[in-house]
């Protein structure tokens, strides 16, 4: 087998035991790797109806056939579990040396179940497991933990780590590696519930590729294209450049989605102002784009992305750049998802302004209160303890009108794309398997094009959104960074060429299109198994009942009926019924009939500590 080890390691922390499970080539070809393969494993390994924070709930790290090759941006890994924030399937991606080291450790995937009785580190070297005490690391930030682990284990080990927020079971805690985060959906809390501070991996097991010369040639070509204009924004400016663009288009969520422009946006982070504080530009391992722009904050350096900037800035009505940078850095140190953190604070600010909460001084624009709440959430203290449950749960506890403006879909807080101003994206949020999500649906690409009127979503646009979701599913399974997407003329055909070089399979573009549809549908089937109904595919009431008043989107509204019409067009394009269920014939066409609990999985080898 080329490109894979053909097996995954299942570890039971409670029993301190491990077993190797074979992954047949046929399965790998159907699900590729990354998010696709992890979704398959979730169907196999996750008990139906499990509490995401129970020991039985699996936490899966999944690699891909491209990891370890010289293909640019391929050093990525997926982390998948049932989300404690949404109770639905959650997949998050992160990057860099952990992916390469985990593959060298002999893994295509790592499935962790059970839990430790004391704070622990799971150490895997060349497929052998050991559990070490993490008593001295508990309470430390991810960056401090990473430094200590390097001292203790040696620089050949790479670690995925939780911060104090994960230890405290904040439902939007992240898993961090080299200060990059598998950020969304609270996977850090799943790891924290197992008392697992870190997973450290190392090894020397190489995976052969089918056509080494072909892979090198493809890598050179892709790298060359990655230096071109299609990635210039990420390379030269970073995603923070979105701030002024979205503001001009009146698509910048502001003050908990009450407005869509922020007058102070240019002062907060105009390009010239931003450049003045930029310290460096960095890359993930095996990446030629280099999208990470590092800025100076009062507390030290910080990597800044648009989503973090929007969430702790305009969404909270805050224009104090230093405070926003401090807030982002604090989230990194606590191990918190910046989008959910900012959205939770913005939601609380609106609750206070409406008299639903009596928190002193918590008002839009109060940077000091924002910084204090980040820490309270991380510690689960005071109001932070409630917000650490996520806005859906917090709104239920607060009551009154709060559920109407709690900014989430399926429990996942909404990222920085105003749904009324970007109505194809509104659909993407509504139907997303992990909730409001800008990485699993690229529907905004339709809104930012001549193919639709972004202020009047349509069934035609909904059908186009399906294609963006399929493209994301493929890239998240190969895995390649989505910042590369613009360099492909035909993603499916070119990906087939890449996969053919690595695996030796006679893969076609059509096969990969079907694989992408299979992966999207497999996620949906998991959610159906966990209790999903069509009622979840919606947005908070605010978006149906309040018009936007700002310039570029003035008068924009999203009638509930319009979104419903788009959802029906989306379901139809996927071959699903009007209730969003997957017909048996579609399950058959997509070769998903083996998703039933209890089917036998052959173990290769078992041992215990």
């Amino acid at each position: 087998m080329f490109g894979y080890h053909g097996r995954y390691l299942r570890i039971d922390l409670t029993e301190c035991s491990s077993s190797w499970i074979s992954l047949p080539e046929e399965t790998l070809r159907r699900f590729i790797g990354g998010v696709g393969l992890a979704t398959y494993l979730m169907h196999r390994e996750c008990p139906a109806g499990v509490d995401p924070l129970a020991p039985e709930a699996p936490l899966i790290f999944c690699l891909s056939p491209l990891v370890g090759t010289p293909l640019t941006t391929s050093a990525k890994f997926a982390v998948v579990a049932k989300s404690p924030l949404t109770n639905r399937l959650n997949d998050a991606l992160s990057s860099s040396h952990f992916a390469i080291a985990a593959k060298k450790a002999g893994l295509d995937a790592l499935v962790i179940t059970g839990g430790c009785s004391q704070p622990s580190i799971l150490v895997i070297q060349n497929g052998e497991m050991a559990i070490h005490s993490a008593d001295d690391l508990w309470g430390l930030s991810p960056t401090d933990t990473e430094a200590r682990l390097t001292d203790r284990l040696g620089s050949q080990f790479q670690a995925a780590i939780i911060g104090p927020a994960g230890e405290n079971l904040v439902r939007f805690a992240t898993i961090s590696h080299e200060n990059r985060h598998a950020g969304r959906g609270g996977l850090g809390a799943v790891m924290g519930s197992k008392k697992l501070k870190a997973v450290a991996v190392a090894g020397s097991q190489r995976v052969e590729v089918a056509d080494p010369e072909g892979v090198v040639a493809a890598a050179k070509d892709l790298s060359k294209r990655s230096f071109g204009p299609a990635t210039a924004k990420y390379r030269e400016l970073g995603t923070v450049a979105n701030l002024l663009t979205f503001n001009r288009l009146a698509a910048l969520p502001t003050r908990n989605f009450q407005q869509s422009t922020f007058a102070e946006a240019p002062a907060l982070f105009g390009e010239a102002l931003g450049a003045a504080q930029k310290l460096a530009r960095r890359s993930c391992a095996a990446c030629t784009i280099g999208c990470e722009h590092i800025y100076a904050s009062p507390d030290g350096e910080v990597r800044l992305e648009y989503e973090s900037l929007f969430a702790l800035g305009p969404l909270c009505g805050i224009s104090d750049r230093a405070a926003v940078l401090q807030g982002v850095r604090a989230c990194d140190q606590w191990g918190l998802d910046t989008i959910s953190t900012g959205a939770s604070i913005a939601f609380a600010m609106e609750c206070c302004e409406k008299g639903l909460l009596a928190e002193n001084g918590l008002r839009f624009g109060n940077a000091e209160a924002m910084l204090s709440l980040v820490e309270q959430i991380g510690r689960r203290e005071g109001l932070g303890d409630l917000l650490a449950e996520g806005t859906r749960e917090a709104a239920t506890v607060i009551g009154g009108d709060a559920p109407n403006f709690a900014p989430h879909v399926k429990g996942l807080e909404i990222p920085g794309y105003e749904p009324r101003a970007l109505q194809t994206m509104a659909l993407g949020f509504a139907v997303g398997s992990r909730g409001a999500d800008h990485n699993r649906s690229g529907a905004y690409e339709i809104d930012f094009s001549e193919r639709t009127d972004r202020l009047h979503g349509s069934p035609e646009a909904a059908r186009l959104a399906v294609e963006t979701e399929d493209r994301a599913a493929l890239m998240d399974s190969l895995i390649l960074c989505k910042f590369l997407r613009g360099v492909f003329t035909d993603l499916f055909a070119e990906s087939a060429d890449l996969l053919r070089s690595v695996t030796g399979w006679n893969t076609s573009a059509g096969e990969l299109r079907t694989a992408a549809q299979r992966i999207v549908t497999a996620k949906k089937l998991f959610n159906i198994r966990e209790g999903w109904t069509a009622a979840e595919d919606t947005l908070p009431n605010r978006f149906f009942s309040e018009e936007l008043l700002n310039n570029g989107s003035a008068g924009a509204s999203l009638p509930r009926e319009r979104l419903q019409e788009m959802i029906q067009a989306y379901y139809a394009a996927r071959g699903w019924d009007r209730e969003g269920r997957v017909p048996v014939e579609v399950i058959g066409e997509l070769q998903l009939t083996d998703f039933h609990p209890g089917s036998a999985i052959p173990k290769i080898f078992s041992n215990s500590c």
Partner: protein
Amino acid sequence: MILTELDPGLSSGESVGTVTVEFFGVPRQRAGRAELVVPAGTILEALAAVGESCPGLTDLVQAGRRLAPHYALSLNGQRFLRDLDLRLAAGDRLLLLSADAGG
């Protein structure tokens, strides 16, 4: 003719017979400015005027009178378009953006 200096009595984009091109993201960096006033005409003509005035933005139009794929255009911040033959009205504001406007 490119109107880089406005009559002090007229605000940007409101002068008779002109449109304002606003730059965002990479185009702003390449242009070295936030906006440029050019004579009203077709979008193609407006982009030609931009290229003339901003040496970093001479790659806006590809063969076949097509907008280069790494750029996007929005008319007055509302409609996105790629039809370069569209005639702009005086006072219009043409937004020139990076095509990858998302995250």
